[in-house]
């Protein structure tokens, strides 16, 4: 069971307190009506399905009811960081090697 750092509660909690809320950093188009069916379909249905570093949203449903972002390695399940919805990730796919050397995966 994952142990997820909630940046609002400021501690790690068991996975069962959270629900997964899909890939992070997908912005809703500002003017949906101006998009072609294909563009709209891309926004609706297409996700990166990353092997390795993945940025995703979690909802602390049994706790503070806040959404936040997590960078997780989909291979090892290691969680590399938790950060606010308004923030950009500190760890990105190409930086994997250096990130994994860190001792505290949930340092925020």
């Amino acid at each position, binding site marked *: 069971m994952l142990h997820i750092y909630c940046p*609002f*509660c*400021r*501690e790690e*909690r*068991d996975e*069962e*307190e959270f629900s997964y809320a899909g890939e992070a950093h997908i912005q809703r188009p500002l003017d949906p009506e101006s998009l072609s069916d294909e563009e709209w379909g891309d926004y609706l249905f297409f996700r990166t399905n990353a092997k390795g570093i993945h940025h995703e949203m979690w909802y602390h449903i*049994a*706790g*503070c*009811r*806040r959404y936040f972002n997590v960078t997780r390695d989909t291979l090892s399940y290691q969680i590399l960081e938790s950060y606010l919805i308004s923030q950009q990730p500190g760890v990105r796919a190409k930086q994997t090697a250096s990130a994994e050397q860190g001792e505290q995966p949930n340092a925020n």
Partner: protein
Amino acid sequence: MSSSIETPLHYFHGQQTGSGDAQVTIFESPLCGHLNLRGNPQDEQFLEGVESVVGVKPPTTAGSCASSGDISIYWLGPDEWLLLLPESRRAEVESELRNKLSGHFSVVDVSGGQTLLNVRGDGVADMLKKSASYDFHSNNFPAGRCVQTHFAKATALVSKKDDGSFDLVIRRSFADYLASWLLDAGEEFGCRVVGGGEV
């Protein structure tokens, strides 16, 4: 009108599991006022506005609670708090908050939807361990802390009192389930539910 009131664990009062003296007592408070408060913790006016009504600022440290007189205020989230107070003061505090606060805030009466339990006794630490994965060891969870967490297959707001006992705020619709759960989990220690009478 008091006879019209049933607290969520009304039908559990006096129930007991296990043999011998109950080592765990679950005390259900009489009907309390529960107010859910939302507002911006960075807004000093908001914090002071609340303080002017309840006597203390809403705690902005995650997982902490504060109290003033007969009002306690629990951190639920970065912009969300629970006020627990005597039911007799609920309406007055609610309307005073509305008067004193301005801008974007919300005050919602949720008194009917939840109930306050106090759980104490020798078996309490193990009973909590049976119910939640959260670490309630005093190193991690000293008096004055509160946490909303997964509890059995429901949720609870748990806080640690100065006397070492624990307060639980649980939702009404899950109250039957949680009372049954706690009585079952407490069977090995002996566990009893006590009602606080009526207001």
